[in-house]
């Protein structure tokens, strides 16, 4: 019964959120505020139960596993205190104390992250953009595999170089540099197109996920709800077509040209 009620509450909230497609309305705002509130409460509880309690209180102040040998590890007071001083940002007179924690985080981050980041994000990626590196796996392959791989490797190299040239602003984009920069722009446009296509796919996937919940999870037996939803959508389509017919054709063309 609890699952049944929970599922229907979720289905109702999903429809409330989707109602924003019509326009902003109280149902949408109610669902939105509820989502933000519940998410925050859940995250606060989870952080307390899985991080603060076991990793700070459980290491310094009390044994959370009765029956096991335990001794306090006072080193954990250092990050604990640094974490607490972050909260001083809420008190203007002692706000400056929060900079200690930030200084620690920034200093640790810079020192710890620079080496592996350079190796993995820059050097490894740079190395992999050279055609002869890409072709190593294809040595001795049949021509049908070798030739497309070779074209791919050369294309990749040209794309990397031309995009880098496009972002090189210390020299005026004229002549050969200008031509290469133009190719670079085209490469960027193709990349943005690919990203946009993927983004559309991702957004539709999210809608599919919610729709699957409404159609399959919210009513495991029968399709009464889905059929009602479909009828509702058909009514919207018919209303939209009627609204279009009532619109004068001249206005339609001028608006389209805008």
């Amino acid at each position, binding site marked *: 019964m609890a699952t049944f009620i929970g599922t229907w509450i979720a289905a109702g909230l999903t429809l409330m959120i989707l109602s924003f497609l019509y326009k902003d309305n109280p149902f949408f705002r109610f669902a939105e505020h509820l989502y933000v509130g519940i998410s925050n409460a859940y995250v606060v509880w989870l*952080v307390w139960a899985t991080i603060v309690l076991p990793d700070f209180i459980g290491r310094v102040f009390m044994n959370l596993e009765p029956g096991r040998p335990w001794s306090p590890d006072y080193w954990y007071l250092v990050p604990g205190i640094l974490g607490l001083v972050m909260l001083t940002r809420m008190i203007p007179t002692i706000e400056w104390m929060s900079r200690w924690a930030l200084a620690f985080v920034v200093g640790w981050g810079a020192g710890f992250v620079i080496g592996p980041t350079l190796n993995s994000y820059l050097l490894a990626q740079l190395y992999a953009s050279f055609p002869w590196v890409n072709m190593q796996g294809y040595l001795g392959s049949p021509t049908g595999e070798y030739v497309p791989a070779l074209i791919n490797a050369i294309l990749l190299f040209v794309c990397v170089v031309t995009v880098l040239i496009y972002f090189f602003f210390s020299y005026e984009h004229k002549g050969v540099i200008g031509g290469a920069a133009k190719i670079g722009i085209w490469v960027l446009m193709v990349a943005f197109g690919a990203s946009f296509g993927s983004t559309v796919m991702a957004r539709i996937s999210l809608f599919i996920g919610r*729709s699957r919940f409404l159609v399959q999870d919210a009513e495991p037996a029968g399709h009464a709800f889905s059929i009602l939803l479909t009828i509702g959508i058909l009514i919207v389509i018919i209303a939209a077509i009627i609204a279009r017919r009532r619109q004068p054709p001249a206005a339609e063309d001028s608006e389209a040209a805008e």
Partner: protein
Amino acid sequence: MVRAWERYLLYSLIALAVLLPLMFPFDVWPNLPTKEVKGVFDTIDNLQPGDTILVAVDFDPSSEPELYPMLLAVLRHAFGKDIYVIGINLFGPAGTGLGVKALSDVGEETGKVDGEDYVMLGFKPNLPGVISQINSDIKEMYRSDANGRSTADMPILQRTPKLQGNIKYMVDLAAGETVRPWVAFGSAPGGYPMGAGCTAVSFADYFSFYQSGQINGLMGGLKAAAEYEELIGQKGAASAGMNSQSIVHVLLVLFVIVGNFVFFRALLRKRAEARGRA
């Protein structure tokens, strides 16, 4: 300028294109596995029973429709081959629950025991720091699992006290930027191979890691999840969703063509009128 009725019409057509295939499923378009998805599948498929893999559930409910089916498919594959699974979440606290649910659901399906065959470690902040620590000692960082149970005597962590040298493969199912730190601080220094699954939005960003060989497989979005389901022979949510996805794509292409046709027709008519007045 987009008029209200146009918006309602487009939304309604998209809604129908999504809902109808879900209500009346059909099987027309096969989800042929790509080389990138097979990279992850083949690596797991070639592992031996008793090997351990790490699955990072680095997503939260906002990416669940794309990545959860992927997670289920990977777990079904691994458990089907008697491979132990360590789950972890370093993306955000809200992802832990999804990992716990997926592991317990698939574990129940395949008769696996929590704590022996699998464990969900849960969320810790500071991704690079946590990865570096668990490369050398998991239990020091995770004294309890996501369900609050002590990890001290947990059989799976007795066998796998650290990632380095113990796990055979790592798959990061990422909604955000977690693949990069896993490559830089986990896979590269830890010496274990890595694959990734991501949302379709991030697929183009992460492809360079696949092309450079830093990850040996990459699954992007719902389509890749459907391909993985095809590979393990268990069609699920992703395969069901791909019918809708394919129809919506066709519809969107039509929208783009019709939109451009209407725009240029109006533009040409306007120019002709301007020439006529001149």
